[in-house]
């Protein structure tokens, strides 16, 4: 596997932002009322992610280290504004249903996380592929969650009726509480798989959180690491502690 396909595999499967890293929870919960919305949000984020990764990677030797965060934010915000206007102009229906969550792509920690942990340290082409992989991983995650909620909550998939009309839709699943329940089920499943993998001794992912974990986060005093799900398997953790 060359390094470009490796980046795609990494974003789609190994470090899938939705299912493995659990990043960008705001849009994941908010816009997944239907599969179409999920795809729309995912692809918008992908576009922003690819472009910002590309530009940040190009500028990585020019941006001084001390002002890199504001610089990244300006880059990301500019692309988000462009995407917002493109959506408004060409797919107004999607623009209306995503609403305020489009400009909020700026504060999606996947984007700043990738900028900080990958694009600012790597050449342009791998950074672009990293953006494509992560973005598509996010899109797949949002679409899957949206599909589940749409099927249970309205009996439809991509706006086509797939369940028989005798099915009584569980409307709560396309309302706000449903988002929490679906995500709870998802994280529970993740816990289960993690435990299995830990028993087998397979490391899943070493670091997690907004980009590169707690060390660079600035929030660590308050959350004490609790905000980020540490997926280092127990066996590895103890090994690490013994080393220290």
């Amino acid at each position, binding site marked *: 596997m060359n390094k470009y396909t490796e980046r795609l595999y990494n974003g789609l499967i190994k470090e899938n932002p939705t299912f493995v890293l*659990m990043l960008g*929870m*705001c849009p994941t*919960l*908010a816009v997944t009322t239907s599969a179409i919305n999920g795809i729309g949000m995912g692809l918008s984020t992908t576009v922003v992610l690819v472009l910002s990764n590309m530009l940040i990677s190009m500028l990585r030797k020019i941006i001084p280290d001390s002002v890199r965060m*504001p610089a990244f*934010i*300006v880059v990301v*915000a*500019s692309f*988000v*504004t462009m995407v*917002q*206007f493109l959506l408004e102009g060409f797919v107004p229906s999607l623009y209306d249903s995503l*609403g*305020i969550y489009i*400009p*909020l792509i*700026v*504060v999606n*920690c996947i984007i*700043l996380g990738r900028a900080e942990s990958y694009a600012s340290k790597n050449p342009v082409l791998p950074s672009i592929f990293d953006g494509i992989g992560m973005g598509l991983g996010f899109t797949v995650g949002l679409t899957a969650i949206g599909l589940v909620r749409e099927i249970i909550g309205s009996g439809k998939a991509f706006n086509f009726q797939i369940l028989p009309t005798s099915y009584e839709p569980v409307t*709560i699943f396309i*309302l*706000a*509480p*449903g*988002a*929490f*329940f679906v*995500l*709870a*089920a998802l*994280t*529970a*499943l993740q*816990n*289960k798989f993690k*435990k299995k993998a830990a028993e087998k001794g397979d490391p899943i992912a070493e670091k997690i959180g*907004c980009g590169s974990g707690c060390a660079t986060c*600035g*929030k660590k*005093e*308050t*959350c004490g690491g*609790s*905000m*980020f*799900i540490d997926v280092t398997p127990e066996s590895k953790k103890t090994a690490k502690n013994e080393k220290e």
Partner: protein
Amino acid sequence: MKELLLIAVGAAFVNNVVLSQFLGICPFLGVSKNVKTAGGMGGAVIFVITIASFVTSLIYKFILVPANFEYLQTIVFILVIAALVQFVEMFLKKAMPPLYNALGVYLPLITTNCAVLGVALTNVQKTYSILEGVINGIATAFGFLVAIVLMAGIREKIEHNDITESFQGTPIVLVTAGLMAIAFFGFSGLI
């Protein structure tokens, strides 16, 4: 007056920022382990959102609109919020040490809290005046405080419960949040 009250109730309870708009989920899940820190976080959010919604409304009304730069709102708002949080932190440290000690650690957290940017953008989208914008900001932040303190109270209670292994940790918190969201539906009759 009636309109302001409607905006306030709507922002704080009916469209609760966490439970129905999903903004600020990260601190909501992360800093809700005990009531005291949750209250501190909520207080800091009220403080920052109030100032931020006031400043962003001013900037929008008196700089962006006259100069026809409305399309720059996202970029300007996020930079203003980031700078503002830094500034507030420095000001509090110098001028009001007791308040800084109470809220200080939570301030850097808030820059990346999407609720702050969310409020600023909502104010523009709904064409609120400056006063309405500030009221909307305070009420939204109050809704956040209510949600996070309630959540912390519940988490303290269920901490030692016997929960299915896979559901321990984040999943049970999310289920709790879902039930709270259902409860908050009750408020939608208010308006």
